[in-house]
């Protein structure tokens, strides 16, 4: 340790003002503070002691909350792979296929994103923000398992440059960066993000009867054909993956889908970590689920077509609702920043998710669009909450 510390101290002057690599000071700072928490002390006046928290630890907490989703996702990628090609395999075989398929996506996402962060930090002369540590993990989890790596890189670059740096960098972005990446792929390569992309098949041949349909597309189809959604979900996969879309199977998440977002259960484990550590707002998580469920119930009451009549609790386990509620909607930068606002923001995400799913079958993945939409409206919600706080103060003054 002393040796590393000594080496860092030795090269440090090169990066400081007047040094030959002065331009790269913030890149150096990022690596230095990664190795050693700095020896800086508090100022002469004001708080002489500080909480042991820092941004790195807070971000690590969020990353750890995503690990259950990641590990489950890796296994599930392998599991679905062997189901689709009709072979039996051991747990480790499935997990290994998943690791091989998923790790490159993670590496590309971090590599491209952090690379851009460092370049911008150097040009803009600001510290490298730890925010991308979380974004870089979120992006792979919302990618389909069979996504080409160049698309991951392109989407990450787009999200970081246009979604974040164009607005002034971390903390200034209006829309969730990881979702921007996902939305970019969704709109730029619509044909690639459909069909069999949800299961990694590789060079093998899919079994007879295999279909890449998702619960959301089945539900949308059911609405046009008029069949019962639950029945069509339960009967899907007969012959090669019986019961894959049964309610409990979808809750646990053993089904095709994005790498990390199929499992509502694992998302809830993540939610428990986020809420217990205080890293994520429980108000947002609860209100997204609550809003979606309530909207589902309202639609059930109104009735109309088969999708509208799908039981409300199915909305909570299909698609990426759970993942979006727990990891995307809670992003402190793009969410509503007032405590009252968080309830409204979350509930509207839930409501819009269900509305988009049911009434706009062209965009089945409603949660992504609902969160992006509410990201844009979050400042407006805050504006009203802050105004009401000001009004209370004004009213008091006149009494």
């Amino acid at each position: 340790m002393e040796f590393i510390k000594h080496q860092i101290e030795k090269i440090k002057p090169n990066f400081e003002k007047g040094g030959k690599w002065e331009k790269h000071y913030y890149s150096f700072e990022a690596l230095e503070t990664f190795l050693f928490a700095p020896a800086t002390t508090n100022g002469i006046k004001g708080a002489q002691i500080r909480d042991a928290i820092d941004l790195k630890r807070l971000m690590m907490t969020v990353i750890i909350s995503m690990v259950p989703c990641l590990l489950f996702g890796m296994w599930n990628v392998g599991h679905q792979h062997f189901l689709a090609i009709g072979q039996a395999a051991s747990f480790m075989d499935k997990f290994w296929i998943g690791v091989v398929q998923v790790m490159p996506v993670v590496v590309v996402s971090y590599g491209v994103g952090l690379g851009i962060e460092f370049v911008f930090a150097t040009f803009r002369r600001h510290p490298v923000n730890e925010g991308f540590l979380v974004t870089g993990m979120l992006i792979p989890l919302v990618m389909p398992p069979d996504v080409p790596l160049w698309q991951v890189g392109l989407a990450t670059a787009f999200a970081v440059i246009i979604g974040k740096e164009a607005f002034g960098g971390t903390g200034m972005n209006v829309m969730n960066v990881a979702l921007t990446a996902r939305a970019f792929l969704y709109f730029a390569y619509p044909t690639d993000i459909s069909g069999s992309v949800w299961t990694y098949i590789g060079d093998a041949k899919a079994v007879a009867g295999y279909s890449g349909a998702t619960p959301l597309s089945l539900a949308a189809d059911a609405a046009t054909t008029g069949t019962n959604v639950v029945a069509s979900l339960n009967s899907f996969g007969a012959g090669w993956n019986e019961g894959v879309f049964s309610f409990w199977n979808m809750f646990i998440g053993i089904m095709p889908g994005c790498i990390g977002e199929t499992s509502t259960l694992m998302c809830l484990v993540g939610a428990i970590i986020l809420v217990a550590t205080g890293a994520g707002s429980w108000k947002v998580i609860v209100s997204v689920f609550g809003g979606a469920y309530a909207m589902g119930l309202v639609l059930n009451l109104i009735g109309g077509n088969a999708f509208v009549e799908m039981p409300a609790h199915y909305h909570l386990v299909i698609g990426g609702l759970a993942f979006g509620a727990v990891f995307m909607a809670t992003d402190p930068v793009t969410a509503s920043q007032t405590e009252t606002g968080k309830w409204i923001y979350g509930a509207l995400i839930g409501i819009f998710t269900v509305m988009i799913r049911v009434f706009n079958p062209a965009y089945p993945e409603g949660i992504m669009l609902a969160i992006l939409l509410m990201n844009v409206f979050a400042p407006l919600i805050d504006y009203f909450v802050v105004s009401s706080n000001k009004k209370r103060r004004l009213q008091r003054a006149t009494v």
Partner: protein
Amino acid sequence: MGKFIRLKKGFTINLVGKAAPKVVEIEQPDTFVIKPTDFHGTYMPKPVVKEGDTVKAGSPLFHDKRHENIIYTAPVSGEVVEIKRGEKRKLLEIKILADKKVEYETFKKYTVSEIANLSTAALKEQLLTSGVWPNLIERPFGVVADPGVTPKAIHISAFDTHPLAPDYSVLYKGQDQYFQVGVDILKKLTAGAVHVNTHTTSEISTVFSQVKGVEVNKFSGPHPVGCVGIQIHHLDPINKGQIVWTIAPAGVIQIGKLFLNGIYDASKLVAVTGSEVKNSQYYKTYTGASVKKFLQDNLKQDHVRVIAGNPLTGTAVGKEGHIGFFDQQVSVLPEGDYAEFVGWITPGERKLSFHRAIGLFSFLSPGKERVVDTNTHGEPRAFVQSGIFEQVVPMDILPTHLLKSILAEDIDEMEALGIYEVIEEDLALCEFVDVSKHKVQEILREGLELVQQS
């Protein structure tokens, strides 16, 4: 009848080294210092003494151009040995080499019944010339009170919840009579009530429980419940255009002594606290005392930070420094200038945190006293709206929005968001819990000064 107010938000910081309820008297420090910088709102303090002059306790030292009738006086008798000036000849401190025995300027003495009949003008005159006036703090802005106004109320916080704070039942033991006379005088200065705000969990000294003619309110909850700004917000909030005064019990007692004994008695007990002090206890001394003698042979190690005041709002003054006008506490903490290998993730029950993020387990044993050093535990970063500030400010105020409006220098917005109701100590916990390590108190004072100048 007073009110009972229960607050939930906040965080009491439990540190090792609270003062034992033991008062010791040692040889008085050699030097005493009065720092004009202790008083917010003074903008051109002008000394009325020269180096070499001899003064008595209560002799004028300086006054400020804004309110020239407020006289700042010497706490002890002796010789003015140094008048320290900073940039642009700004007056920084006046140092007095103290006599062995304190001699006092004499002011007019009154009996309790005479005080009852005193005119407000005569009363103010005595308060202003003797040096006790600067104990009165005006809100908004936390500046020395303007003698020309009548505040809507006067608030006295009768307990301190800051880390390592002194116990008021020790500090003010036996001062009942002076405190009573003090509040009797204060009542003549306000159109409204004098509030004495006590805490439910600590034992209330008779000084506060037996006092007559005031509203005795009860509060419960964690720090910052002891900050008078928080109490005002819940009892009788400050609106635009309104003025409220606050005063610490020490100031009230000084006022009482001034009228009953006819002297400016700046004697006080100072709690010398902190994990690095061998004997945490109370010392009898005077306002502005040098800390040197309290720390002699009383430190566990040498690499320490000596803070005049408490660890949240105090000032690092060094081992030879002096306490400020309002300080009744010296805190000595380990200096934290060490780099910790991957310190941003290493777990530890030892690390004190309001958060519960990965590896920070201090929330499991909230009552445990901890040793905390002065390390920043992280680097400055952009604001992250994690909702944490809102959890430590028990007021209907949006701290993050207020701070952002200050950074944007938007005065209308600051007013609308309630800047009139807060001073540094009210938001000091935000600075402690901040993930992005902002200097919250410094930012707030800049905002207050901007609003004042507008």
